[in-house]
């Protein structure tokens, strides 16, 4: 094959800088470029081989009936062992590489964030907020220290680390500011507005660095937005990031999603973006009940997640999509994707007939970034491609 046919991802240099983004040295950029291409190689070259190995075992008489049995079969397959080990290593290396970059300049990053956050009324921290078990039990995504660990006064390290590595894991598919999900929500909301839905107050639950909510704030500057998270280093970083991008209509608040300090019916639009799968069976009903309580009549709740594991989904695909549960420290991922979310939302008070689902793709600048919507259907990198299911409940 001629090299001209090869898809090359954008280099990490094109990640959009902002006021608290870590400065990358030459070799730090090169490390991210290597990992981005390695992730693409694993998905496009090695994963199809795992499928061949699986099919070959099925041809020889194995007949796994569910994803647990697929796992039993593949656990003994050397090619799966290799792919799985390599994928785990790319996650660990991505963490090591960005932490090395962040910690060498942490005092400067903390200073930059402090200056941007000084006297800011849109950053509201509350040290009495306890870190829930589902956040602290293991470090999600193999991020050492998780979202919440603080290494110094006014720390922003976890935010800077998270922000600088998203590009690598998604091979650039989330765009310049890793905000392809937020941009997709902007497109969705523009369509809704044409149909007469015009939210004035928006709530984003589990906002991390604010990358999914900033595009909405920019596109709809007249809206008043509250973005909550339990992790202070994320919120400090998110507020400074938003400020430096010229956004002033988001208030970042340290809150537990299970008991949010806001009036009943005080939001017209409530969003969670790849958040529910990082909670627990105990917390989920409480969070969904909070969204019902806080939503105004005529309002909408949008949850963005990867597709559910339904009976229509073949066991092999279910097993692959469940990989992150055990191998990327996402202990609630599989449980969430087995749930009937329609039922869960009904139990939280929503009318089942008013809950719908639709597909969403990351919206990116296609001159520079690969488009998930236009990517070949066989380029699936189970759980990594920014192609989501949105669950939308109206009240």
């Amino acid at each position, binding site marked *: 094959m001629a090299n001209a046919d090869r898809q090359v991802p954008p280099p990490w240099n094109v990640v959009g800088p902002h006021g608290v983004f870590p400065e990358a040295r030459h070799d730090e950029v090169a490390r991210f470029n290597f990992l981005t*291409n390695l992730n693409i*190689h694993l998905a496009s070259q090695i994963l199809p081989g795992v499928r061949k190995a699986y099919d070959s075992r099925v041809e020889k008489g194995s007949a796994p009936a569910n994803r647990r049995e697929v796992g039993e079969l593949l656990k003994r397959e050397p*090619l799966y062992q290799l792919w799985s080990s390599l994928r785990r*290593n790319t996650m660990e290396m991505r963490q090591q590489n960005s932490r090395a970059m962040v910690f060498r300049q*942490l005092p400067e990053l903390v200073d930059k964030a402090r200056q941007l956050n000084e006297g800011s009324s849109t950053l509201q921290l509350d040290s009495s907020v306890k870190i829930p078990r589902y956040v602290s039990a293991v*470090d999600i995504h*193999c991020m050492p220290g998780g979202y919440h660990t603080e290494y110094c006064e006014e720390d922003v390290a976890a935010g800077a680390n998270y922000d600088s590595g998203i590009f690598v894991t998604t091979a650039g598919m989330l765009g310049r500011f890793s905000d392809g999900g937020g941009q997709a929500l902007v497109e969705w909301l523009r369509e809704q507005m044409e149909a007469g839905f015009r939210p004035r107050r928006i709530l984003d639950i589990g906002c991390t660095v604010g990358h999914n909510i900033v595009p909405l704030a920019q596109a709809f500057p007249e809206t008043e937005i509250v973005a909550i998270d339990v992790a202070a280093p994320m919120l400090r970083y998110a507020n400074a990031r938003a400020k430096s991008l010229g956004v002033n209509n988001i208030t970042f608040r340290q809150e537990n999603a299970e008991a949010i300090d806001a009036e009943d019916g005080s939001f017209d639009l409530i969003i969670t973006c790849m958040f529910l799968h990082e909670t627990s069976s105990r917390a989920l009903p409480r969070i969904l009940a909070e969204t019902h309580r806080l939503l105004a009549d005529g309002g909408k709740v949008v949850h963005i997640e990867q597709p559910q594991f339904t009976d229509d989904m073949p066991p092999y695909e279910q097993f692959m999509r469940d990989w992150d549960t055990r191998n990327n*420290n996402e202990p609630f991922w599989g449980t969430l994707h087995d749930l009937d979310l329609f039922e869960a939302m009904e139990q939280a008070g929503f009318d089942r007939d008013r809950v719908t689902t639709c597909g969403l793709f990351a919206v990116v600048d296609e001159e520079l970034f690969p488009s998930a919507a236009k990517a070949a259907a066989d380029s699936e990198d189970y759980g990594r491609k920014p192609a989501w299911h949105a669950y939308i409940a109206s009240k």
Partner: protein
Amino acid sequence: MTLDPINMAGTKARGKRPSYFQDVDVDRLMSILMAVAGELAVTRERMDTLERLLAAKGLVAREEIEHFTPDSDAARERGLWHQDYIARILRVIQQEIEQFDEDHQAKQQAKEENVSTTTELDELIEELASS
């Protein structure tokens, strides 16, 4: 808390690490090998930067290397280099995958030409040696 970036970069994430191979020594070796592979890629990219700068200006300042950003053509060439490099070091896996096609072809050939399906060398040695 003293901040030691070298140690802190490599901190373990809370949560037991799964093992992927029958022998955990293989897991450990794989992690070391991939880190080394990555560092070689990084060195190659740095050399590429140096060469481009040298060619363009005839001298190299350290700051220039730190702030070098590839234009879109260079970025593409470098991306291709990464792909070439990764394919080279992971050759053994490519060949393991191609074995599936070889098996299918051998089966097909066995049917058409009435020969053995094997591509095992030991078996072929025996087959070719037998009269």
